[in-house]
């Protein structure tokens, strides 16, 4: 076993870390007399190409995954005609969308309308650039990777606003306004929730965060269960997925910001939604689930495969919530951000800061601190949620969920009322 490992370690065919492949490339280019800067440019382009092709593949596959999984949840089959298990359905969809005529509202500001779907697609792709796929396998090892992710995800919301505003449609404008209101509210719990991770890892570099988890032999979700819940809910609000898909709320405002889009422009929105979901899943997998590192498992299975597995695990939860949950109303959603998630995230940050301080000052070993922190933070998570539910949960007038039953008719003799005032002034204006 070890011999086999030694045999492949570090050579270009060692698929556990695809960055090994760059070494023969580097040597080949150096022999050809290309300067270091040229090699840098070429490898950066190759890495970008890899990310973009991954994104393309993901967009195609996820259409099938989402429709198929949701179909199963809805006790129907999902696409199953085209190709084996309907796998070619996304391609047929794409061809159909490309052939369709792109209609544009006549009075819409044209350039915003056109730019919006493109601007919506870019952040999802760009976020994937800083995700570490293996020990050396990261395209852009930014020191401020976490901030970069946050900044880009807020840009995506701006493009949603552009789409809604430029469509010159009331439903779209509603979607745009809702997106803006939601962004203003949910940015705070997202940032405050992720602060705990930064405090633990002592860095905003995603690779450093993964290495922290490896060093201390614990997934961040164990250390930060509350932050995980907060981030998961907040980001599903930013992603416009149920239970927070108020920006495109099909049953209320038809399609929200993309009501007026057709053809491949709509297709871009559709694909970008899936790409963003995968990008967010990748962030969650990296920050909370150990990224490419998984308890020695990454020595046998390539880390990037583990990461993709984790990404799809998280993505499945996104699809699951979408297939299951109804939608909040916008005021409830905003109240949830301000009254529940923000205080919870701030309390979490304070507790984490105290823990990190004690950890550094006492100098006791990890074998004491990691289980202690896991215990404290799990208790904090459960305790806070129970406390908030007990204290702040909405109180309804009366709360029976069962109707009364009468074996016969029972009508109290009610006083006569004059009809409400509306009837007097009613009718079309």
């Amino acid at each position, binding site marked *: 076993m070890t011999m086999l490992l030694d045999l492949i370690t570090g050579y270009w065919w060692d698929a556990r870390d695809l960055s090994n492949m760059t070494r023969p490339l580097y040597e080949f280019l150096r022999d050809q007399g290309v300067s270091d800067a040229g090699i840098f440019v070429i490898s950066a382009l190759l890495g970008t190409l890899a990310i973009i092709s991954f994104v393309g593949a993901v967009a195609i596959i996820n259409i099938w995954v989402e429709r198929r999984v949701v179909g199963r949840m809805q006790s129907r089959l999902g696409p199953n005609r085209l190709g084996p298990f309907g796998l070619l359905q996304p391609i047929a969809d794409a061809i159909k969308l490309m052939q369709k005529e792109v209609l544009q509202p006549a009075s819409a500001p044209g350039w915003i309308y056109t730019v919006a779907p493109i601007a919506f697609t870019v952040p999802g792709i760009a976020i994937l650039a800083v995700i570490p796929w293996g020990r050396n396998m990261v395209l852009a090892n930014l020191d401020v990777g976490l901030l970069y992710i946050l900044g880009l995800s807020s840009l995506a919301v701006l493009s949603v606003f552009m789409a809604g505003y430029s469509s010159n449609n009331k439903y779209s404008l509603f979607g745009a306004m809702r997106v803006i209101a939601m962004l203003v509210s949910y940015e705070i719990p997202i940032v405050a929730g992720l602060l705990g991770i930064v405090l633990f890892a002592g860095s905003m570099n995603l690779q450093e965060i993964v290495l922290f988890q490896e060093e201390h032999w614990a997934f961040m979700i164990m250390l930060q269960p509350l932050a995980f819940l907060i981030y998961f809910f907040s980001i599903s609000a930013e992603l416009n997925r149920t239970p927070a898909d108020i920006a495109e709320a099909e049953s209320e405002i038809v399609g929200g910001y993309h009501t007026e889009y057709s053809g491949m422009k709509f297709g871009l929105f559709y694909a970008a939604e899936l790409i963003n979901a995968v990008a967010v899943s990748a962030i969650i997998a990296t920050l909370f689930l150990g990224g490419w590192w998984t308890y020695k498992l990454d020595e046998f299975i390539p880390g990037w495969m583990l990461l993709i597995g984790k990404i799809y695990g998280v993505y499945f939860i996104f699809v699951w919530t979408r297939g299951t949950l109804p939608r909040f109303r916008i005021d409830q959603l905003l109240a949830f951000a301000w009254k529940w998630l923000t205080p919870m995230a701030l309390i979490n940050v304070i507790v984490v800061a105290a823990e990190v301080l004690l950890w550094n000052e006492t100098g006791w070993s990890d074998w004491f601190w990691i289980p202690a922190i896991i215990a404290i933070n799990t208790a904090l998570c459960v305790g806070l949620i129970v406390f908030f539910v007990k204290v702040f949960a909405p109180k309804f007038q009366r709360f029976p969920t069962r109707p009364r039953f009468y074996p*016969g*008719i029972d*009508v*109290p*003799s*009610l006083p*006569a009322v*004059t*009809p*409400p005032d509306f*009837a*007097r*002034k*009613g*009718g*079309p204006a």
Partner: protein
Amino acid sequence: MPHPKTVTLSGEAVAARLRASQPEAVRSATEQYVVLEPAGMYEAMLFLRDDAELDGKFLIQLCSVDLHTRMDMVYHFASLAQNHMFQVKVPCDHEKPVVQSIAPLWAGAWLQEREVYDLMGVMFEGHPSLTRLFLWDSFPGHPLRKDFMSLPGGLKPGLSQFPKQKEGQTGQEFRPQRPGTGL
């Protein structure tokens, strides 16, 4: 105590009760229904609604019938608490049908009166917004009236004989069909 099964109050009983307070309101009464004077119908309806015995708080439905010479507004009232119902009719002119609106008394009459106006052309005095309900505003005429689109050749609206019925047949020759037997 409500009746176990809905009792249909006879028109005479309702008329007697109504005459006790408003002698002028009732024009005539039969076993099935009461006919009210159109002039004082609003007050009569108010009495029907608020009277403890009649207790017609629930307006089941209202509609109109075109009788060629006059229009009849037909109202069905019920008391849910006592579980009885009764029927009231208000006649009005055929050419210029106008009755008083009861929408200020029952919220449920609001849409139904608009429907009657739309399809029958009955005008309701005091209705908050008497506009067409189903048809568009410029629709010519009121389609449920019997004289809507007078038919040529002396034909009358309605069905005068059964389909496929020929001269000399009474219509009784047609028997119910039995599926699968060819009969």
